[in-house]
């Protein structure tokens, strides 16, 4: 089926203006050996002001004059070159291209990606140095005295609203924004060598704020604080790849290739920590809490990877391939002290805020990975295809862990707590375990062509092994059937059904966690392409993925994280993730009535749903059983057209895309249960602590419309005029209406990444040389 090229949203990277000629070219005479061509586009744009960062989340839509496209390419004296530039000198600029000069080939790509995650957020703090957020000590003392001066049951939302109102009104403004600058270069020095040899270099710098971060500051008044997490990161990657391609004139063996690669990747975080003043204390205290909280950032780390592989070609499309890779990840960044609170001491009397108190100065962490892939494919007789594949991936955490004797994890920056090693937490905490895993998988597929129909049967066997997790072993076996039917032009059908079963074996008290638990997964797909006329085509697609988690554990009554004496699993109370599924179908239409017009449209329906279940107990008896069925329904449609009003002169282009996603959290509760008042025996009505659906659950609407009229007024010149409109809305019951703090003392920045609508007009001048 002929597929038209829909008009992309032009503000992303100016593709609309960078177009190749619209329709089929008249044939040119044989091109000369040397040639040179290029495109330059200037844009003049006006638009509404937009407060929400969502409009320019990953892009820049500049007012005034800009150059969305500039590129040139050509060949001269046997030297080829090409340079493509997008959004020249903007924050989202990109340049890529390459050149081949005799024995040397060079390619490069430099890409800047803005990350705008919330404009005009409010913060009580000022960032006095990278990652250090401070407030006036006098103000902190006053707020603390006012809060600690009333009984805790009187520190209500209205109390804090009244206390903090003046401070919030004078809050600073912050844009939660970052920038990723990523550049890579490849040097190919094997053009005139009997083998391929290339070197790669990548450098990426990330600056700004990663997003909302921060955390809790525990004390007499416990608050949780949102601040921007500093981002000052550098990643470099060096690589080398060599390959030898060989041919054979033998009838059976036709040659192949062998290759080897090595990469070293180094990550450096130049922002070592995040420090936030306690809004309610200016001095450290053991029982009342710290004056500051300090959070770790990402530790510096490095990774090496070496691999070698081969591919051999034989007769009858027989291929044998394999590759083996070894990786090593290391991390040895210096630890921060246990706490920033100067009043906390270890049982031995040492200050917990001193580096000298640490059991180890750093982790000296190491993870080794081993990957093995082996493949065989062949068409031994016409119409028959056989494929076999074996994959193994092993991740071994080789870090030499030590038994942690104590820290301030239990009450961060407030008190020292000893660590208590257990059978499943021999190093003090379960999270200190050096988790490792290994996956082995074998796939076999056999396909056979029956005329225009290809049918395939497949099965796979996989084994899963883990250390320090509850499900230490498991399998993931399955089978699949597929059929592909394709006549010459007018009908194509693809259908697939896939069924796999994952098992989990090991010891667990409360049940395996969802990512390792028993799971039954089915996937069903169907795609039909109809081209009844050369100018008209339809595509219908359907896909469904269903994950069931059977045998989820029934609830056991616990106290303090351990089962209550005499408690038994309560029948009919499966807990955790029970089911997750995704359904979608799409209809596409493409119509090309003539060489002068292309029209297309599509509609997609999606339904995402997942169900998890909770229960609470009173003593050893069931109290509440809560079922949370979260879902969203997506309706997406698009239409596009490109019409040559006057061939090679006037061209009209149009794009419309709209997506509406309706989220829902369907909550049901056990009728005899209670939530806040033990002993109730009737269903509590909504509005009084009962159970009611949340209908505003990450709901969005996004509409984009672009209309463009272009006029080619000279052989190499085109001017276009356009209008675009974009509207985005977002709604979520749990955040709608909340201000900087909804209750307790939660200081959220509330950066604006919400709805917007914007009108854009532009003119573009394009020169093709």
């Amino acid at each position, binding site marked *: 089926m002929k*597929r038209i090229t829909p008009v992309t949203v032009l503000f992303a990277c100016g593709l609309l203006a960078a177009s190749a000629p619209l329709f089929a070219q008249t044939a040119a005479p044989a091109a000369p050996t040397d040639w040179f061509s290029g495109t330059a586009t200037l844009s003049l744009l006006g638009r509404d002001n937009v407060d929400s960062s969502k409009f320019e989340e990953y892009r820049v839509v500049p007012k005034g004059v800009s150059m969305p496209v500039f590129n040139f390419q050509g060949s001269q004296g046997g030297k080829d070159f090409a340079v493509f530039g997008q959004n020249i000198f903007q924050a989202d600029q990109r340049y890529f291209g390459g050149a081949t000069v005799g024995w040397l080939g060079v390619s490069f790509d430099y890409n800047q990606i803005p990350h705008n995650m919330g404009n005009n957020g409010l913060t009580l703090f000022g960032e006095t140095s990278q990652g250090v957020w401070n407030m006036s000590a006098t103000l902190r003392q006053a707020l603390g005295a006012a809060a600690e001066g009333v009984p805790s049951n009187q520190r209500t939302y209205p109390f804090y609203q009244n206390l903090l109102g003046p401070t919030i009104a004078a809050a600073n403004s912050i844009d939660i924004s970052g920038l990723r600058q990523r550049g890579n270069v490849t040097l190919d020095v094997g053009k005139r060598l009997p083998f391929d040899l290339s070197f790669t270099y990548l450098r990426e710098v990330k600056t700004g704020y990663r997003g909302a971060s921060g955390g809790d500051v525990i004390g007499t008044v416990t608050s949780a604080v949102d601040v921007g997490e500093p981002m000052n990161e550098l990643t470099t990657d060096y690589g080398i790849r060599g*390959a030898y391609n060989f041919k054979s004139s033998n009838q059976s063996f036709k040659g192949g290739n062998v290759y080897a690669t090595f990469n070293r990747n180094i990550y450096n975080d130049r922002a070592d920590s995040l420090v936030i003043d306690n809004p309610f204390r200016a001095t450290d205290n053991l029982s009342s809490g710290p004056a500051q909280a300090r959070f770790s950032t990402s530790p510096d780390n490095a990774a090496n990877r070496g691999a070698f592989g081969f591919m051999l070609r034989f007769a009858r499309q027989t291929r044998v391939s394999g590759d083996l890779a070894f990786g090593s990840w290391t991390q040895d960044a210096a630890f921060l002290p246990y706490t920033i609170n100067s009043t906390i001491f270890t049982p031995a009397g040492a200050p917990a805020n001193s580096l000298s108190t640490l059991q180890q100065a750093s982790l000296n962490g190491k*993870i080794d990975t081993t990957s093995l892939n082996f493949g065989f494919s062949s068409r031994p007789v016409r119409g028959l295809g056989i494929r076999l594949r074996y994959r193994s991936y092993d991740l071994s955490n080789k870090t030499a862990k030590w038994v942690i004797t104590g820290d301030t*994890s239990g009450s961060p920056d407030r008190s020292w707590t000893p660590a208590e090693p257990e059978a499943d937490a021999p190093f003090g905490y379960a999270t200190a375990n050096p988790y490792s895993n290994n996956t082995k998988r074998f796939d076999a597929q056999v396909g056979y062509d029956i005329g225009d129909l290809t049918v395939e049967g497949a099965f796979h066997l996989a084994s899963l092994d883990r250390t320090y997790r509850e499900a230490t072993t498991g399998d993931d076996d399955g089978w699949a059937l597929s059929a592909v039917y394709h006549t010459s032009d007018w009908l194509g059908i693809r259908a697939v059904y896939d069924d796999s079963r994952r098992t989990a074996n090991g010891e667990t008290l409360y049940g395996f966690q969802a990512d390792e638990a028993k799971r039954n997964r089915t996937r069903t797909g169907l795609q039909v392409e109809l081209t009844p006329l050369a100018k008209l085509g339809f*595509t219908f697609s359907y896909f469904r993925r269903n994950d069931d988690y059977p045998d989820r554990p029934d609830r056991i009554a616990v106290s303090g994280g351990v089962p209550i004496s005499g408690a038994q699993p309560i029948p009919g109370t499966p807990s955790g993730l029970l089911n997750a599924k995704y359904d979608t179908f799409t209809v596409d239409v493409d119509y090309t009535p003539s060489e002068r017009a292309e029209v297309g449209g599509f509609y997609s329906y999606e339904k995402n749903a997942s169900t998890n279940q909770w229960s609470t107990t009173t003593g050893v008896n069931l109290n509440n059983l809560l079922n949370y069925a979260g879902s969203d329904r997506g309706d997406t449609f698009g239409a596009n057209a490109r019409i040559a009003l006057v061939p090679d002169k006037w061209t009209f282009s149009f794009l419309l895309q709209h997506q509406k996603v309706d989220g829902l959290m369907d909550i049901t509760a056990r009728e005899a249960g209670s939530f806040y008042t033990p002993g109730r025996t009737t269903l509590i009505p909504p509005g009084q*602590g009962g159970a009611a659906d949340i209908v505003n659950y990450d709901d969005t609407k996004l509409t984009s419309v672009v209309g463009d009229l272009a006029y080619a007024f000279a052989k190499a010149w085109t001017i276009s005029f356009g209008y675009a409109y974009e509207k985005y809305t977002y709604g979520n019951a749990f955040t709608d209406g909340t201000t900087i703090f909804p209750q307790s003392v939660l200081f959220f920045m509330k950066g604006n990444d919400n709805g917007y609508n914007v009108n854009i007009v532009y003119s573009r001048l394009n020169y093709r040389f």
Partner: protein
Amino acid sequence: MRRCLFVLALMAVFALSGGGGALAQATAPPAGWSAADCLTCHEKVGSPTFQHSKHAGLTESCASCHQNVAEHAKAQMAGEKGPVPSVKALKANDINTTCLSCHEKDSRSSYLSSMHARRNVACTACHSVHDAKSQTAQLKTKVAAETCYTCHKAQRALSMRTSHHPVREGRMDCTSCHDPHEGNRAQMLKADQVNELCYTCHAEKRGPFLFEHAPVREDCVSCHEPHGSNHPRLLTQKMPNLCWNCHFTGSGHFGSGDNFSTEEGVPVAPAGAPSGYPTVNSRFVERACRTCHVKVHGSNHPSGAFFVR
């Protein structure tokens, strides 16, 4: 005149070669023969895009890919039907064999084992030799994502969701993560395992960490939907429900039930409201669990056992 000279040249070739019968691919066009000869009839395929590509400069020109070129020309001149060298008429496997005769190396070495090949996707389903629209890779569309969306409709809709990788903005592409020719790796990823792929841009998550979050170490996709989601940070579910998939036992937060939210709450309960009237639950708003458990990907802080530091 030019057309006649071409036909005469072809006839001379036939005569000298013993003529007749089907000409095998091995019969090279006469010296001096070039694509321009085919272009005398097939004007439209000689676009500047093609003329400036490596394909235009191949030794056997059009005959490098199209079979029975000389026979076709001879038959057309004679007013007979003759063979039709169109690649479109070939089955997918035959098209792939043609292209792979030159391009079966590097990442395309395993194409014949790939899911695309298994589903009879021909090279020409995505690539165009004569009328490429993209700036690299000779695709039929301007950007790779549009090519992928011709079959992968679900990913087109997912890419429009509010939390997404910057594919629709043109900052990334499907090929940033997937190699459409890959036949050995799962999901056609450009790495041995999904986490290793994610670390190529998110190296800050690689660790290892003093305190590890086990499902994170195993698979990023346990919690994230990389193609697009309506929940923050590409999460598959909104917090805290996502965390409840695994953390459903009695702990300090969820043992008593006083941290559930069973309906939309208000900041302050109205005067006279009964005990338990739903107010906004701190575990559900904004960053939810991550309000305090900020280091869910792992913590290197000596007091970070519960990821709060």
